[in-house]
């Protein structure tokens, strides 16, 4: 797999081939393997190795990018030329910034940012197809024990990413990630669990399989109850997938574009007193690189404090534009925070290492159930889409383990619901939270989130199963 030294060599050749005023190269290299199972057999089993260089050239306020996955001189020359041709024909951008040097990117001494050492694990990188098959076999045996059918994945990733520019920046980050997702299916019910971690030793396939199986068994013969407003207990994966739809709006460009639900709302109390959210790439449960698409150090940013939206995140260029904009006085602190995407782009930036912080006394999911007179326990949400961008209403379905809670106990499985729920309303109605955990879903990037007990969650329809 591509190393930092090889990338530096390639970047040296790119610089020789380019006549641009400034050059940047972003490298990504990965070895990825995924074993997929369904109907209690392995039916797909894949492995991929690839490395990519993405070259950006600057000519006095004009910039563009070209990407290649072949590193011979001809391929690199072609990519450099494509980038330069795309850049040269543009009109200069008056807000354009030169590339950052290491002092600007990293602050202080200019020392390269590093992630906590816990993000690369040889044990994860070394997983073989046979190892994955053995884990799948153990999951299938759990399914067999409960007379269920199972489907899911077990994957491992080893990756390296880096950014080099002609002002001397040279950042590199290595990481591993192992992931398991398990669905257990019965005749008319199902259960699901998913978890990932840089360190495969943090994953317990048997426990995940048993939990998914229990959910499938306990939700069998689901009842249909009328849609309406219910107290819900959302497990962490359900919280992750629904709240993920609001974080695009926590970037400076989304405010400048006036497409954010935070337009005219920064500094106001939008959520409940118990909602505290930060973005923290260095959090021990987070993953990913410690620098952004321009190589800037990712800083910790407090986005929401006691329900008040305090600020948004910024790429370098966005911070400059915001300071000169009509919104400057009403958006809180404005400074580059290290959350930008590779340039050029139209989306700007986004917090990608979101951490929900528990306020006050936490409750386990079991305690939330015990304190609920009537409500719905939700394992997972699915096919979530935005309905209203300013009230932040999103729609979607429950899936793979939806239960009726009555008198402090799980009573039975329920047919799945469609919801139409405002995230502003939801995060104003949180009655209890668990200890935040690293959660993985399918609709959003991984986050550190708690389970939540939410009152008056809006189910609008029920489906047929």
């Amino acid at each position: 797999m591509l190393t930092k030294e090889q990338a530096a060599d390639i970047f040296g050749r790119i610089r020789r081939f380019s006549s641009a005023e400034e050059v940047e190269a972003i490298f990504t290299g990965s070895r990825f393997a995924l074993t997929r199972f369904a109907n209690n057999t392995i039916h797909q089993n894949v492995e991929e190795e690839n490395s990519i260089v993405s070259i950006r050239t600057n000519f006095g306020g004009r910039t563009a990018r070209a990407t290649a996955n072949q590193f011979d001189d001809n391929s690199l020359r072609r990519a450099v030329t494509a980038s330069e041709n795309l850049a040269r024909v543009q009109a200069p951008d008056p807000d354009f910034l030169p590339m950052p040097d290491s002092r600007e990117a990293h602050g202080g001494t200019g020392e390269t940012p590093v992630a906590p050492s816990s993000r690369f694990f040889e044990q994860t990188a070394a997983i073989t197809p046979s190892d994955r098959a053995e884990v799948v076999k153990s999951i299938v045996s759990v399914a067999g024990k409960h007379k269920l059918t199972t489907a899911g994945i077990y994957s491992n990733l080893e990756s390296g990413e880096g950014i080099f520019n002609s002002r001397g920046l040279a950042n590199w980050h290595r990481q591993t990630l192992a992931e398991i997702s398990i669905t257990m299916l019965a005749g008319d019910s199902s259960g699901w669990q998913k978890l990932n971690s840089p360190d495969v030793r943090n994953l317990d396939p048997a426990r995940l399989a048993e939990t998914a199986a229990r959910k499938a068994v306990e939700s069998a013969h689901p009842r249909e109850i009328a849609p309406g407003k219910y107290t819900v207990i959302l497990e962490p994966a359900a919280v992750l997938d629904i709240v993920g739809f609001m974080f695009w709006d926590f970037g400076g460009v989304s405010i400048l574009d006036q497409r954010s639900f935070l337009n005219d709302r920064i500094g106001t109390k939008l959520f409940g007193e118990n909602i505290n959210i930060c973005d923290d790439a260095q959090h021990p449960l987070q993953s990913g690189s410690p620098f952004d698409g321009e190589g800037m150090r990712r800083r910790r940013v407090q986005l929401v404090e006691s329900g008040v939206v305090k600020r948004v995140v910024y790429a370098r260029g966005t911070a400059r534009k915001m300071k000169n904009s009509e919104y400057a006085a009403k958006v809180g602190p404005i400074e580059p925070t290290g959350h930008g995407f590779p340039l050029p782009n139209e989306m700007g930036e986004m917090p990608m290492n979101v951490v929900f912080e528990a306020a006050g006394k936490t409750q386990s999911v079991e305690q939330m159930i015990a304190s609920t007179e009537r409500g719905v326990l939700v394992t997972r949400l699915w096919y979530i889409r935005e309905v209203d961008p300013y009230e932040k209403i999103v729609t979607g379905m429950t899936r793979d383990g939806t239960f009726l809670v009555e008198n402090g106990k799980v009573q039975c499985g329920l047919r799945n619901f469609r919801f139409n729920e405002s995230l502003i309303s939801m995060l104003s109605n949180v009655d209890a939270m668990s200890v935040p955990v690293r959660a993985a879903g399918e609709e959003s990037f991984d986050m550190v989130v708690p389970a939540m007990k939410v009152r008056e969650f809006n189910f609008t329809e029920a489906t047929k199963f």
Partner: protein
Amino acid sequence: MKAAGQLALDAASARGVTYADARVVSIRNRSLTTKNGRVGHASESESLGIGVRVIAEGAWGFAASADLSRAAVEATAARAVGIARASARVKKEDVRLAPEPAAVAEWTTPYKVDPFTTSVEQNLDLLLKVDAEMRAVAGVTLAETGMNFQREESWFLSSEGARIHQTKYSTGAGCTAYAFAGSEIQKRSYPNSFGGQWQNRGYELIEEMKLVENARRVAEEAVALHQAEQCPEGRATIILDSSQLSLQIHESIGHPIELDRVLGMEANFAGTSFLTLEKLGNLRYASDLVNVVADARQEHGPGLGTFAYDDEGVAAQSTPIITNGRFTGYLSSRETAHAIGAARSGGTLRAEGWNRLPMIRMTNVSILPGERPLSLKELIAATDDGIYMQTNKSWSIDDKRYNFQFGCEIAWEIKHGKLARMLKNPSYSGITTEFWNSMDAICSRDEWMLWGTPNCGKGQPQQVVGTGHGASPARFRNIRVGSAYS
């Protein structure tokens, strides 16, 4: 490219596989956007590599690499075989494939203008003109445009003797105007959301779209929506424009007919399907007026699901999916066709690129136009009371594809056969079979458009491919509307 494929087949065969295929794929892409009068992004990309798929000990293995050196290709093939042998440790039955003649063929997307021969200046000049038209409308707070081209050249070789060389072009462009005021953000897109219109054609598609001519109109509509009444909640007759109907087809017909979903192979992510095997030939899916095909052939049109051969060497076909309202066909592959006892694959296996395993994907899943001449204007004139909805804004459906909800960008009341006041935030919802059985009119060929959906996600690891959907505007009775805001 072809030599690398042969090398992979030889290396796999030498390791005792019962089947092997290799795809060597080169993809070139250009992507341009503008935002509020400036270039949003300008980029080009190239990707080249090989994917090797084998059956050994009755199980599948797949490995892919960007390195096309002899040593790397042989190592990739060897890895695929090793992975297959690991798969065999958790199997119930050997994988078997429906028979398919080994094709030797050459095919290229028909086009008039190779989009990569057009200059970036020309592309950006057009987009900036469109952008300026939208921003000329007072109240527009964000104007966005985009244009994309892709050229995909592939060699498919199989141990059964297939040797297929295809070059596919796709082109797409569109624009969107946003208006934020008070406590609302409204938007309008042209000619469709999802980046506009996409087809397997050359630059001639862009020239036919009349982007500049329509940009100001949709921008004015985005602003006007702020003064419009909210879409009511209740039951109503609705007419859907062809672009919204194409997405309705995609979600509530295209996905549930995927045989891998039906057989449980997607249960962990994309989900399963309500279309269990006993329903084939028996289920009253829709009203008599509904005829749907899955057609990958060029004669169906230049859709994003048009090709000569799929990614396991099966020739493009037209499969009747719904015939006079009755459910008549699935989307299948060689493996799934064998599993249900079909004589042949329907030819729908496609991969996002060289590094992904091909899987069942929609081709062009289209509703056929009405046989009786009927324009949209005539359909509205024949509707006493209803709502006409245009252009998708949100979409969601459950994991068996029963319950759906769609939001559209704009709607108009229909009163006494005429469009009346504009409605904002229109939405409708329902159960798939109930919805399709409520269709009582569909416009004829003159109103039929083959739309492209460029962002269909499926699989683990997820693959995004383009699909095609032809549709004419159609009318549905007694549909639940407005529940998104209830």
